[in-house]
């Protein structure tokens, strides 16, 4: 901008030329920004187009009802689908209550002291730990020390710890959004702390908590590395029937197929990716719907 003050005394054309150049720079910058956005958008579109083209012909009924196989035309995702379902059931069963309870404690009960601070710093740090490190934790603690084996339950426990920070942060935000007047009215009528939380805070915070839980579930469904580390199988020709049975999940099945050399298996992987993405998009849509409803509430 120092140029401007210099140009003030000069003849007009120089000033105009400089102004033009400054405008051009601004336009150029917008173009750069749009190009950057375009890189993301184009990548997403190419990725989607590619998996759709690659998977054509593979997404039939047989694909959903068959186990994995050495022969691509006989291979399917039955074991992976059921494995993902089982694992997610136990994961959410563990993570949602613990996460919501932690959030209630931190928002409604905890005093502003070093202990609370310490827990908060801990949660923030846990959110930044690479997922594969959670896998090592699960391998050592759940698989080995607690002797769960490389089972559905061990996978669920590992995954629950992984998504706990997400659920806690989302639940805390939902609780914080409940107006304080709601609590005060409840206290004024003689309700205790827990009665207030149970009957007034939680119902209002529920949609926000649900949104957080669904997004956390979407994250867990797509996670691969920690489950490979705890030793979930890559080839499972059976359905897990017990929480201590061995299992596989959809992303591991996809990883397995991508790792094979034949291009038929890559096409199978693309078909698996379509299923995975459809599930994730469905979950995210529900989360967005809930978020919208929450917005109109107050």
């Amino acid at each position, binding site marked *: 901008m120092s140029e401007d003050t210099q140009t003030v005394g000069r003849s007009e054309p120089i000033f105009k030329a400089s102004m033009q150049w400054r405008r051009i720079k601004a336009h150029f910058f917008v173009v750069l920004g749009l190009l950057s956005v375009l890189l993301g958008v184009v990548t997403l579109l190419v990725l989607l187009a*590619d998996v759709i083209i690659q998977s054509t012909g593979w997404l039939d009924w047989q694909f959903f009802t068959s186990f994995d196989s050495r022969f691509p035309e006989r291979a399917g995702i039955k074991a992976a689908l059921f494995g993902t379902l089982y694992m997610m059931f136990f994961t959410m069963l563990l993570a949602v209550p613990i996460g919501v309870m932690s959030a209630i404690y931190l928002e409604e009960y905890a005093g502003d002291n070093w202990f609370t601070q310490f827990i908060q710093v801990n949660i*923030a740090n846990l959110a930044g730990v690479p997922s*594969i490190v959670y896998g090592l934790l699960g391998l050592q603690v759940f698989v080995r020390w607690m002797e769960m084996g490389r089972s559905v339950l061990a996978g669920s426990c590992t995954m629950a710890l992984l998504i706990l920070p997400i659920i806690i942060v989302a639940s805390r935000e939902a609780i914080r959004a409940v107006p304080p007047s709601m609590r005060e009215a409840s206290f004024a009528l003689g309700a205790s702390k827990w009665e207030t939380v149970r009957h007034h805070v939680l119902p209002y915070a529920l949609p926000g908590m649900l949104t957080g839980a669904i997004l956390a579930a979407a994250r867990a469904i*797509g996670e691969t590395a920690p489950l490979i580390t705890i030793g979930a199988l890559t080839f499972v020709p059976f359905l897990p029937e017990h929480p201590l049975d061995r299992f596989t999940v959809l992303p591991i099945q996809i990883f397995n197929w991508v790792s094979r050399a034949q291009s038929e298996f890559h096409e199978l992987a693309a078909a698996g990716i379509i299923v995975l993405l459809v599930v994730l998009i469905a979950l995210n849509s529900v989360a967005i719907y809930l978020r919208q409803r929450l917005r109109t509430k107050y």
Partner: protein
Amino acid sequence: MAEDVSPFSHYPSRNDMSKRASRNFKEEAIRYALMATATLSIVTTLGILFSLMGETLFFFREVSIFEFLTETEWTPLFSIKKFGIWPLVTATALVAFIALAVAIPTGLLIAIYLSEFARPRVRDVIKPVLEVLAGVPTVVYGYFALTLVTPILQEFIPGLRIFNALSAGIVMGVMIIPMVASLSEDAIGAVPQALREGAYGLGATRFEVATQVVVPAALSGIVASAVLALSRAVGETMIVSIAAGQNPTFTLDPRVPIETMTAYIVQVSLGDTPFASLEYRTIFAVGTMLFILTFAMNIFAHWFVRRFREEYD
């Protein structure tokens, strides 16, 4: 809650007293139960530390820490075992560097564009796209890198192998763009509007406001977002396991197969490694290294924001 609130009973009856006592007991019990669940985050951190440390200590009883940190060959799965972690570290650094070279400029440009230039309606279209991009599972990005990006790059780059750091790094960069964009946008959004208006009032163009006022004011947050992106890139697993190979080579050539720290952990996990074997312990030693690196970066990012934040009013 079914307490008797009859207007004639001014004094609490014995029944009421015991009810109140039981109610207080219940309240306290719930309080401690909630507190216990909140403490689980501390237990998790301790669990990570103990499970990593324990096996790592056993590992360093058999392998000297000096060899681990100075040797440049990593062959724990061969008959002649060498335990120099450098090939894994350079591979991780190489892929992360390529990823950041893609993610930081584009992510930052998107953040500036969204907060300083884009109209609200454009923002409402772009932000969900970025969210979708951030929600795609990493195994899908790995598939993308191996089956689509690598063959395309092979057309232009002679000598590019099927497994290479370049393609994995580029795709990882695209994966990290939303993270850089959203963190940088938060930092830029925290810059007070008055600063922008002051600059506009002096006759600055949007470009000048963005580059000479907003970005310098938000620099601490932008640097922090870059460091967090680096931490994310270092810990990323599936893209490199699928597309970058499983050859621990001590090289910075982005065209050849390599093996990152995370990919090594995956490689060993896929085999049936017995507990308490040396191979089993190597993944904890590598995991400890990974944990220390990412932890240091996360702490640094948070410290940096706090230390160098521009304070206004």
